[in-house]
């Protein structure tokens, strides 16, 4: 029994180590902030660990993890709406103050995207991140968000429309993007 438990722990450890970078990036896009992202991924994985016996043997553990993370994000977002919305000083992100210097223009572009992303309602942000960063199908995104495909479509469309309206972003892309 102890051996089996240890084997499960090792399996979880390997799963977690492998997924950590990707989950951190997703969480960062969802929260817009380094520490909030770490917190989100960590609490998500704690829940995954609790159910690992079931999750680890499931066909698609990734789907479960995504679902847990999106739920946790939605819940936190309801709880302290403003706290995570704007990139903070300690986040390592550049501020949105425009600057003509090339060196910081790149950071400004990223900052503009994160800021625009942060200003989307949580469900739109989730839909955009899942569809265009995680590259999920609408059905997979709907599963992760616990809603219908139609809701994913409309949230993603609205989110994208708002991002498109951000001037600096459209321009960056048209100029060939960043390296």
């Amino acid at each position, binding site marked *: 029994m102890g051996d089996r438990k240890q084997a499960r722990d090792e399996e*979880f450890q390997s799963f977690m180590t492998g997924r*950590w970078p990707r989950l*951190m990036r997703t969480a960062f*896009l969802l929260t817009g902030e380094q520490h909030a992202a770490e917190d989100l991924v960590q*609490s998500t*994985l*704690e829940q*995954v660990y609790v159910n690992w016996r079931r999750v680890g043997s499931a066909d698609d553990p990734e789907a479960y993890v995504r679902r847990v993370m999106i739920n946790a994000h939605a819940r936190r977002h309801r709880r302290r709406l403003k706290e995570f919305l704007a990139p903070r000083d300690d986040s390592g992100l550049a501020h949105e103050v425009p600057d003509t210097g090339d060196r910081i223009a790149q950071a400004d572009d990223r900052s503009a995207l*994160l800021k625009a992303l942060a200003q989307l309602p949580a469900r739109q942000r989730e839909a955009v991140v899942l569809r265009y960063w995680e590259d999920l199908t609408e059905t997979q995104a709907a599963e992760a968000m616990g809603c219908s495909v139609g809701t994913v479509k409309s949230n993603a469309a609205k989110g994208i429309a708002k991002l498109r309206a951000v001037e600096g972003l459209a321009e960056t*892309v048209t100029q060939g993007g960043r390296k």
Partner: protein
Amino acid sequence: MSADRNGNHDMSQTDIAFLLADAADEVEIGAAPVQAVIRGGRRRRARRWAVASATALVVAGTTGALAVTGLPGGGHADRQANVANPPASPEARHVYEPQETELSRGMFKGKPWYVDMQVWGAPRNEDEAARQYDAMAARGIEPVDDKPAALIGKTSYFVTRKYGSQRPRQFLFDSRQKLERLSGRDLQFATNPLDDTSDPHGDRVAVGAVAKTAREVTCFWKDGTTTLVKRGPVVYEHNLPKPAIVPVAGYPTANWFVCVAPERTGAKTAEVTK
């Protein structure tokens, strides 16, 4: 920057994906904190176990009545179904402001710690539930159900631990149509660190519920020592309460206790001994 900024440049979905990928690279990816996650997961499991035990007790005692939801208060739900409830206001029922009880407090490394419990009255409709959910959120409290409507008809309780200037952390909580009534030597407990740093010796705080009739609880620590917790008037020493089994406002079906392990050891188990 170009002057052409008025929407002439449209972004394709591929562009969005590109921008997201670029922005995602901003995050610093440290080493995966595997051990911290496993410890946190075990703690959650322990907490869930405590909650699951309570569920089992209630299901055993109220089969049938559970099918009728949304009716707070004592007695059988089916009996209340056709009876008009007294028009107690949500405020009087503590829907938006919980009843709060200090379970224990003390000092650790020169900073105070508190273990408190709050009990929120059952909302009766969606409006009350939504307001309650917001009121909980304002206090940094997160109910077990993540949808406000799921709170309807349920009393919610939260045990929180606060250390120094840290925000209170909830670590034992549930929302129930009927609070579990413990009897005999029934005991449910959960453990938690005293502060937010993980202690290699294990969790030092044990919090639990016992029957109203329980007179003494013994907390067993990993180093073989024990702490006795007695029911009765709380005894203070240097203005700090000694461990005690105490009643909790709004929670009439059980008493609660807190005991804290000595330094360099952790909680092993707890039992009702009298």
